[in-house]
């Protein structure tokens, strides 16, 4: 218990000193957000659906079923606009031909034209299409039930039949329901990159400085064991990574509507990744004796791993050879897992191999860092 208290005290003190550093928030929050904005908008695409999807209707029908059909389309998420002639500008346009009712009553096939502007939101178009399928299904079902009778009058007298048919849409498992957006990729990607950058630089330099200044030795003047001191330093650097990830995710959630998919599993992935990075930072800080060397190596490692690991662009879009090469990067396994959770509705089984690789890496690096942990030069 005393050992644990001492470990927590040292780790807490390291975090306190880091947070008191004025440049901490710049490197941990401001600078990564700058990167998030850059990469987020670079890969923004047309992913953001407006709150209401617009549908312009050119109703040329001469009978009664055209208006009835439009009633079926109406929904809170759809803004219906009617036009007398085909407009020059629209997001989506459906044309009900003059013989729309006539063909229905004659039980003849007919095709409806749905036109879409090329650069309009794909997500909004999907919402409109779903609504159209629902409206068609309901119209057809009601026709089967009541034939040619005056359905409106019938339903006025029999309200219980009004919603007799309900069409619900479901997606098969693993269907991509949300088009990956720039921010959804950029926030986890830059978070993973900056965990490496910050933890390796700050964590490594402070281990080296504490050793040079004799602080590590002095810590051992207390009843603390060398093993407990190492664990405290490892814990502090792991907490640095987690703190940074949480801050960026919270900012991402508030300002960029970040959706991680499965939040607990995403945090587990980040936690194991941060542990591997923390161990690497202690290892680097123990081996190197100069700040410049630690900073140089950390920037190099963080950027190479970020590029290869898919932090800057989705790894799915790079050539297979580059993707295979990326597997040497811990960031690859983290980003791949986060993509599975966010975009491919992955569950624990889907990310278990990633977690396994990251955990193995964390264990190996922790053993190495512990073996080479130096108290004094």
């Amino acid at each position: 218990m005393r050992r644990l208290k001492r470990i927590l005290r040292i780790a807490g003190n390291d975090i306190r000193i880091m947070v008191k550093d004025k440049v901490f928030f710049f490197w941990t929050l401001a600078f990564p957000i700058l990167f998030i904005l850059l990469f987020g908008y670079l890969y923004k695409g047309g992913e953001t659906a407006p709150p209401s999807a617009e549908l312009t209707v050119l109703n040329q029908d001469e009978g009664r079923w055209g208006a009835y059909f439009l009633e079926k389309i109406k929904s809170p998420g759809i803004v219906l606009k009617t036009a007398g002639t085909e407009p020059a500008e629209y997001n989506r346009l459906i044309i009900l031909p003059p013989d729309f009712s006539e063909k229905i009553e004659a039980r003849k096939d007919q095709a409806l034209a749905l036109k879409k502007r090329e650069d309009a939101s794909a997500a909004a178009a999907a919402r409109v299409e779903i609504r159209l399928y629902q409206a068609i299904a309901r119209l057809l079902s009601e026709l089967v039930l009541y034939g040619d009778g005056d359905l409106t009058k019938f339903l006025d007298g029999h309200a219980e039949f009004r919603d007799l048919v309900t069409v619900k849409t479901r997606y098969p498992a693993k269907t991509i329901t949300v088009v990956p957006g720039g921010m959804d990729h950029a926030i986890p990607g830059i978070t993973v990159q900056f965990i490496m950058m910050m933890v390796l630089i700050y964590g490594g330099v402070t281990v080296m400085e504490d050793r040079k200044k004799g602080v590590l030795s002095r810590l051992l003047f207390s009843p603390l064991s060398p093993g407990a001191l190492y664990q405290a330093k490892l814990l502090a650097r792991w907490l640095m990574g987690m703190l940074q990830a949480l801050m960026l995710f919270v900012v991402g959630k508030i300002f960029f509507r970040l959706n991680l998919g499965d939040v607990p599993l995403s945090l587990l992935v980040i936690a194991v990744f941060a542990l591997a990075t923390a161990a690497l930072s202690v290892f680097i800080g123990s081996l190197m004796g100069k700040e410049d060397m630690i900073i140089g190596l950390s920037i190099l490692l963080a950027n190479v791993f970020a590029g290869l690991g898919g932090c800057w662009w989705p790894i799915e879009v790079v050539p297979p050879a580059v993707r295979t090469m990326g597997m040497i990067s811990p960031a690859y396994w983290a980003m791949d897992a986060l993509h599975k959770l966010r975009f491919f509705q992955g569950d624990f089984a889907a990310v278990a191999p990633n977690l396994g690789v990251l955990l193995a890496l964390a264990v190996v690096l922790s053993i190495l860092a512990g073996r080479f942990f130096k108290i004094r030069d």
Partner: protein
Amino acid sequence: MLPGRILWYDAFTKEWNMLEIKNLTKSYGDLLALDHFSLTLEKGEVLGLLGPNGAGKTTLISILAGTVRDFTGSVRFLGHDLFSDRNLKNRLGIVPQDMAFYEELNAMDNLLFWGGLYDVPRDALKKRAAEILERVELSGRMKEPVKNFSGGMKRRLNTAIGLLHRPDLLLLDEPTVGIDVQAKVSILDLIRKVGAEGTGVIFTTHQLAEVENTCSRIAIMDCGRILAQGTMEELIRLVGEKDIVEITGNFPAASFTEALQDLDGNGIELLSAADNLATLAVADTEQIPKTMDRLFRRKLAVTDLKIKTPSLETVFLKLTGRSLRD
């Protein structure tokens, strides 16, 4: 558990020394840093460990602190093997030569952090920290980041951290290095007071004046061994009733040594000879003109000659053959 047991034992028996070091030997490759080093210390005793750079002082402190291993010999502290139970470290205070604390924090936060590592009760910690800051005259600056402190203030804080948990034994490794006279006096005064309160103190230095005025016992060490130890008077007696003659001039050390090599029987002892500076112990001042005559005949130029009474420095020269400044 252990500290309580020791207190009980302490109250009724007193059969052991506070610190008992026996045959401590430590090598770094071919370099013998400590060579069968032995030492004892009583409660309240202030021991000055005097030695030139490389004498083994810091190695000794590091072994006692537990940061250097792979040595032979034994260290018993309060009747127990120092390395058998980590909790014994709660009774040991160590002030390293390095300014080993967090410059980003203020003095009070530093003390609260370091004190928390020793099992000081939480409610007592803040009170003790305030008290010790008062003792080292840092109360007025306790909320300032330590990085703004002067060298002397940092040294005082460094010392305060070692004292916060009220240790039975305080080890200080060159506690006055690189600070002004005022700060030095303040730290030495604190060391004296701590000793007077019953804490055993060992402090290493290569400043003669510091041990002369501060310590109840002095040990002179070189090449990893204690060459002599005792009170100031006991050590000076080692030189005998001789006067000390310091000769300055323009001569090579080898020529000087050669000129005086057969004078031992005349009550003249060559304590040290460097180029242009030599020190002799002379039983009879009438021998001085004869000595000068020998030097002149060999055309060794002498520009100055001083006759002094024996001091700790003389003892050191006699024992080690070199000045502390070497």
